[in-house]
């Protein structure tokens, strides 16, 4: 149950209950007052009657009249109002009492003067009516204000719970990678300790995360420098011993492989979703693909391959580092598996709502059984690294797949109709599908 609803229900119930009790008490009090008032009236009526000394006959009054009287002298009825019976309406005893006659309940006052008993009576009903009127006029406005009171209370509760609502909003818009602290200006004494604790936990998490990231980068440095040393010194040895030394060539090939594996593992870590989901933006594929081709061009032209890029100015929602890694792996793969003098065709196109990056080559292509396996980590076409002449570690396509998933895209391998080799089709969802999330993010930033 929400705190708001709970508070509303309790407060409104208590107010209603109190109003009800007050009404009963008020009714009782006004009843007593009314009785006093009427009793004074009744006794002064008796006094008046005595001083009038009514004649000894029946005095006609309307049957609706709320007053009645009887005069008795020596146990004889000497005068009465027409709305009384022939019998005495009360016992001859001084003071107030209540009696029934003529089918109604009366308040009777008895008074003895000389030898005459004066019995005056008044209907009880008007007393109740008066009390009811008084209490109703007192209670009605209170009852009528209960709905208004509810609205005011609801507003006050909402206002009082506002910091909680703000905290809720801040927390909901936080995604899993956002470890920034929560800032609230008017958190209140009760909420502040919670926010402080939360911020402490968040900043600890953030530090741990930073440490982990720095560790990855430090590890990269630690691996990259000795690998550079290995590479350069092997290269120097080759220069001095000539390039036909078999041991040295094996050494250099192994160093290359190691470099490759380390690079791919680092890339796999660098492209993890935790780091990149925050850094997605609208990017144009053209310059990214151009740069990747330019980077790889030395190898491609060394293999006497012809590469072409058919560009259609495609914009996607993504991360440029990831997309560059994806393009690099796919184009490098195409070059590696395509024989000398082969052809590579890179194209971007729009197909309906979707955006496509396509890489085709004139290499041997891929068999049906291999299509499903190539995305597994460390799987290599044609078996272990030693059996094929191509340098690699089988991580490339796993990374590609990983990046595609990160971008909510899909990847398909098939045979290129144009070049008869492998055709890799990477499909990215339309920008429209991201508009919603982007718009939401913008709103959150401004709120």
């Amino acid at each position, binding site marked *: 149950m929400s705190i708001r609803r709970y508070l509303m229900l309790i407060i409104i119930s208590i107010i209603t209950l109190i109003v009800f009790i007050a009404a009963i008490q008020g009714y009782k009090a006004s009843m007593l007052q009314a009785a006093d008032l009427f009793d004074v009236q009744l006794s002064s009526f008796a006094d008046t009657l005595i001083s009038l000394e009514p004649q000894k006959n029946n005095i006609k009054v309307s049957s609706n009249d709320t007053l009645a009287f009887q005069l008795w002298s020596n146990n004889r009825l000497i005068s009465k109002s027409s709305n009384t019976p022939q019998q005495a309406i009360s016992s001859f005893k001084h003071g107030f009492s209540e009696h029934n006659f003529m089918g109604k309940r009366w308040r009777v006052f008895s008074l003895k003067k000389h030898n005459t008993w004066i019995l005056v009576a008044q209907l009880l009903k008007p007393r109740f009516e008066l009390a009811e009127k008084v209490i109703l006029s007192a209670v009605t406005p209170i009852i009528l204000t209960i709905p208004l009171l509810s609205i005011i209370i609801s507003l006050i509760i909402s206002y009082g719970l506002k910091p909680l609502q703000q905290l809720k909003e801040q927390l909901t818009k936080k995604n899993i990678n956002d470890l920034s602290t929560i800032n609230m200006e008017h958190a209140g004494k009760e909420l502040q300790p919670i926010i402080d604790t939360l911020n402490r936990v968040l900043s600890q998490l953030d530090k741990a995360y930073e440490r982990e990231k720095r560790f990855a980068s430090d590890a990269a440095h630690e691996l*990259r*420098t000795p690998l550079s040393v290995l590479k*350069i010194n092997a290269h*120097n040895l080759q220069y001095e011993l000539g390039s036909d030394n078999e041991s040295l060539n094996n050494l250099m090939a192994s160093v290359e492989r190691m470099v490759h594996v380390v690079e791919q593992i*680092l890339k796999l870590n660098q492209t993890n979703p935790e780091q990149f989901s925050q850094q997605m933006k609208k990017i144009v594929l053209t310059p990214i693909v*151009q740069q990747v081709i330019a980077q790889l061009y*030395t190898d491609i032209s060394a293999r006497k391959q012809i590469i*072409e890029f058919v560009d259609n100015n495609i914009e996607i929602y993504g991360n440029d580092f990831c997309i560059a890694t994806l393009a690099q792996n796919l184009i490098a793969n195409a070059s590696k598996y395509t024989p000398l003098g082969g052809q590579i065709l890179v194209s971007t196109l729009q197909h309906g709502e979707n955006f496509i990056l396509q890489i085709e080559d004139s290499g041997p292509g891929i068999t049906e059984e291999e299509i499903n396996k190539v995305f597994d980590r460390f799987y290599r076409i044609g078996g272990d690294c030693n059996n094929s002449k191509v340098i690699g570690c089988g991580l490339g396509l796993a990374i590609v797949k990983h990046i595609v998933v990160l971008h909510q895209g899909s990847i398909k391998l098939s045979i290129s109709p144009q070049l008869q080799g492998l055709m890799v089709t990477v499909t990215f969802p339309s920008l429209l599908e991201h508009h919603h999330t982007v718009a939401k993010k913008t709103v959150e930033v401004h709120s």
Partner: protein
Amino acid sequence: MRILLVEDDLPLAQGLQISLRHQDFAVDHVSNGKDALNTLAFADHDMVILDLGLPDIDGLSVLKEVRKNKSAIPIIILTARDSVEDKVQGLDIGADDYLVKPFDISELTARLRVIERRLGTANSSIITIHNVVIDTLAHKVLVNEQVINLAKKEYMVLKLLIENAGRIQSREQIESHLYEWGEEVSSNAVEVHISNIRKKLPERFIKTIRGVGYTVEN
């Protein structure tokens, strides 16, 4: 060509020195940022190979310091950091090029050669590729020992391609090299220049990489 190598990893520095000497570069080595700044203050080096992870002063700070003194000496950054931000930051501060470890020695020498050609401080100001010779001092181009006439912009395009032989230059790169900011450029200006140059040069000297740019092969 005298190079100052700033690298704290001794085996790497030694290996690099040997490699570069094989390629006829003269290499001096210092292993921290302070020494690098001191050396650059009075010694006469043509370019710097700078490792970013130095023990005392961070490589980027060394770079900033050098550029603060208005020195335009070409600086190639060597680093194990390869994030896009790191690269952009290095280039923004004023590095001429950026190489991520572990690199191919051939890649490094290729980039050194590009800078060398640009500086014109190689043995001569003459670059020869196949049967095309460009004299960057005399602004002359010879094909099969015959001087050919090139318009100013055509010469600039050819010089850019030859200086960066083996690397692709995109149309945007060529454009930004030819025209000042705000200058009106027709959309096919680069294509027109290339086509004019091609008429005067041997066939297939300038290669088109369709959709990417142009290159002259080494």
